[in-house]
């Protein structure tokens, strides 16, 4: 039997890095909401963090194998939840993403499904480890990911739906997909994507506009391109050292859209400059590196897969969010992990970290 591991084996280093990042997040949310009606968001974020930390410790005490065991059930329930969202969800700004649980609590299943998906994919590829992936295996993996993805897309929430994709990629990569298979897949996806883009009907007008404005941000400065332009102005005007806390004119003057969630990195870069932004990137690098180390040290395959799933999701979100903020990617509405304001995002991250901690604590078990 596995012996219970003590908190001595807890990854304090990783926790320190994550808490440092969270501190930066809270401070920047405070600054970005200073003159707005959202000025309590820093405090609220702090609250989410505390809850997140508690959950993280609780989850770290659960043997991740139990989680992998129940993954199919949880996955099934998660998919049902997504269906429920489409059926009874609350429509906010044209999208059904939340289920109102009453008492001011809004539940967004799509974030949780991400976690369940990571567990499910880990479990799936664990079963396949050691042999070459057949097209059937790959097809099943796609189905596993694409069902919830399609449901989330239907909400519509392109951003969250996209974050499911890196879980699949990580699974396929670690699961042993061959180069030939990758090439065929990429080619197929390109053809599909091109067809969808040309038909133009699959994308909502606002999504189409986002892509158009990404290609030419100056075409409609007050419309879709406005966000990208203002974000670039915020980041660029920050210069090397930034304008200082609470002094970002783009952020404080409300030129930067939602500077406490999706565009928080732009706000941070405006106020703390290239140096500050580089510091945040460095923190991400350290956190991700630490996670990968833990994945290496995991005692078994599902452990590695789970952590790498988390790495894939975080890396993807960092790439897409910061890429958007600096004008390298279109606006997708993906929050920046550990930085953006929002309970669901925080809880996902800390639950995921809780599982990572558990995996780490059990690394010597055999």
């Amino acid at each position, binding site marked *: 039997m596995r012996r219970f591991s003590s908190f001595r084996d807890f990854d304090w280093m990783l926790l320190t890095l994550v808490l440092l990042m969270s501190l930066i997040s809270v401070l920047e949310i405070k600054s970005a909401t200073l*003159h707005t009606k959202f000025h309590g968001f820093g405090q609220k974020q702090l609250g989410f963090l505390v809850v997140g930390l508690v959950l993280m410790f609780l989850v770290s005490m659960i043997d991740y*194998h139990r989680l*992998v*065991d129940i993954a*199919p059930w949880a996955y099934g329930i998660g998919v049902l939840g997504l269906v429920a969202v489409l059926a009874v969800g609350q429509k906010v700004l044209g999208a059904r993403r939340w289920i109102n649980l009453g008492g001011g609590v809004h539940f967004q299943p799509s974030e949780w499904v991400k976690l369940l998906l990571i567990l499910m994919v880990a*479990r799936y590829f*664990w*079963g396949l*480890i*050691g042999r070459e992936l057949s097209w059937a295996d790959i097809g099943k993996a796609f189905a596993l990911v694409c069902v919830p993805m399609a449901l989330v897309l239907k909400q519509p929430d392109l951003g969250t739906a996209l974050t499911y994709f890196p879980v699949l990629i*990580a699974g396929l*990569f*670690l699961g042993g997909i061959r180069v030939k298979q990758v090439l065929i897949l990429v080619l197929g996806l390109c053809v599909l994507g091109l067809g969808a883009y040309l038909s133009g009907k699959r994308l909502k007008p606002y999504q189409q506009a986002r892509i158009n404005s990404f290609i030419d941000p100056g075409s409609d400065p*007050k419309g879709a391109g406005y966000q990208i332009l*203002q974000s*670039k*102005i*915020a*980041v*660029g*005007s*920050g*210069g*090397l050292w930034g304008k200082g806390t609470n002094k970002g*004119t*783009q952020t*404080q*003057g*409300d*030129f930067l859209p939602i500077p406490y969630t999706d565009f928080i990195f732009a706000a941070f*870069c405006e106020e703390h*400059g*290239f140096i500050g*932004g*580089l510091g945040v*990137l460095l923190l*991400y*690098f350290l956190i*991700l*590196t630490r996670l*990968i180390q833990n*994945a*290496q040290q995991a005692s*078994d*395959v*599902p452990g*590695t*897969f789970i952590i*790498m799933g988390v*790495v894939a999701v975080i*890396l993807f979100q*960092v*790439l897409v969010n*910061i*890429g958007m903020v*600096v*004008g*390298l990617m279109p606006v997708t509405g993906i929050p920046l992990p550990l930085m953006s304001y929002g309970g669901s995002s925080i809880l996902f991250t800390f639950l995921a970290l809780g599982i990572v901690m558990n995996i780490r604590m059990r690394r010597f078990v055999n």
Partner: protein
Amino acid sequence: MEPTPERRIGREEKVATGKLHATQYLVALVLLLLATGMWRLQVLGAEGYKQLAEANRIRKTAILAPRGKIFDREGRILVDNYPSVECFLLRDQVKDLKADLPLIGKGLHMQEQDILAVLKKYQLEPKYEAIPLKQDITPDEQAFIEAHRNELPELETRDVQRRLYPRDGFAAHLIGYVGEVSEQDLNSPKFEFYEPGDVVGKSGVEEMYDALLRGTDGSRDVIVNSHGKEVGQLGQQMAKPGTDLRLTIDLDLQTVAERAMEGKNGALVAMDPHTGEILAMVSRPTFDPNQFAVRLTRSYWSQIVSDPDHPLMNKAIQAQLAPGSTFKIIMSLAGLEEGVAQAMRVNCAGGGTFFGHFFGCDKHHGMVDINHAIPWSCDTFYYTLAEKLGIDTIAKYATEVGLSQKTGIDLPDEASGTMPSTAWKLKTQHEKWYAGEVISVGIGQGAVQVTPVQLARALSGIASGGVLKRPHVVFANEVPPQMESALISSYPGSGDRTIPLSPENWETITDAMADALGPGGTAGAAHLEGIDFAGKTGTAQVVSHSAGATSLGAGKERANAWFVGMSPRRNPDIVVAVLWEHGGWGAGSAPVAAQVVNAFITKQRKRAGNLRLADGPQPGDSPTQDSQPAPRPAKTVATERNESPVMDGVRTASTGPHAKPGVTTSSPIPQP
């Protein structure tokens, strides 16, 4: 359910380390890519983006300099400013103007095409500059803008200062009015530094002294948020208020003059011959400058420009008309200075034949010498004198006293009049001067044309022994010297000058002019008891050029009634010129001048503390110390704190220019 994978023994239970290393490299690569993106914006593009950020948040707004106020010579206010609200359009806040147009038009009571016209006018200005959409908006229009802040973020209200002029066109021609600088003006070099929407003086003192009155607009750099809401201020340059102007006008005298000219068509100029200061200036009909201060309504404009009596014309300086018999003053001067008139005796038998034509006189004056020719205004005498002098001698003296040239008064668009001569005729009509033409010139008919202010200046010079002054409405020492010298040098040959006159000659003339207001004189009815009042009437035919025609004509063909007078007769303190268009006999204008002179002398005496009551009651005069011939209005507001009646009017009109125009002046004559 499948068996859990952990129970499948014998499988390789590790993921290849190489793949995890590859992921590590991928992480580094992704973060490096993002860092490159940041570098591009924050290091390479920093300066450009900093400028864009500044442009985003900083809005320059003008602080409008309050225009200088205008006072009368005693510091009583003539033109004030009042706070008003103006609606501006922020073009950088516009999302879809076309869609908003109907709502804006409805709320601001504007035609859609008018809004578009405003936009077109400012289309070349930078987008971030707000453009004035409607001036002097009403409280309900203001409420409309407030209520539609969210739907129409492009509308903004600003507090501005507007001009408040005296009611009923009081001194309107003299003061002038302001308006938005026109597109044509903007293209001229004079308006090089003006911008569309700037308010400039359009006529009168407002135009002439615009540079002083306007001051310098300041500016404010404000920090705005993305909604255009002001959230802070960076710095500001205060506006330099316009300079207050003190006019030479005497409000009391102006009031008397305005009332005396009420209902008449013409002009009045009262001036101090010692200095050239204009004490009163009236032109009739008048207009309401308040209508111009705010956007002019089309109907008022068309009413003004289509009026055959030219309400916008300042007739005191712009009406060029035959002076009629008032010209005989200049004739007499020429005759006496040439030594011809002293011994001249002419037998007036109701006219005389010159150059084969009969020229009539309105009476049989019998034997006339210079001392009687003036008070009786005997045409026959002056026909004879003109024949003896010849046109060029007459022209020489007329030009000496300032005819056919601008007086140099500090008001825009002064007319110069005409003095015929042989050279003049050759030049303008390319014809030889016919000697016979001089006869009608002798009585101020023919081609002679003068303006009231020219006549006033000429008489001022003659009655002051040849010392001519430049008429002016603003104290010369109260404006910057370079402005004053520029003003003077713009009228060569005018301004201050002294011509040598022998004392006995101008004394003869002035004595004879005093007789004109005595028994038997042409203006005997305007005689002011106890006041040394001298003058000369003039009845100038409007249509018929046959000099000496005795009929006055009727309506628009009725003769123009002139009068020039002064008090006292030598080195006078006041000279008054009155033009009553189509007023008939010149004697009709004499009482108008008499009222002004009387008011002036009365005030002068009161001020000197040695008031002498006018001896003997005058017709219609109330038995009070007030000896003004003007009938006192029933409603008299005695102003004790030296407040002017105009001030009173100003206060009444402080509901703004919305006050109904056209109410006859009921302002009382103040008791000094």
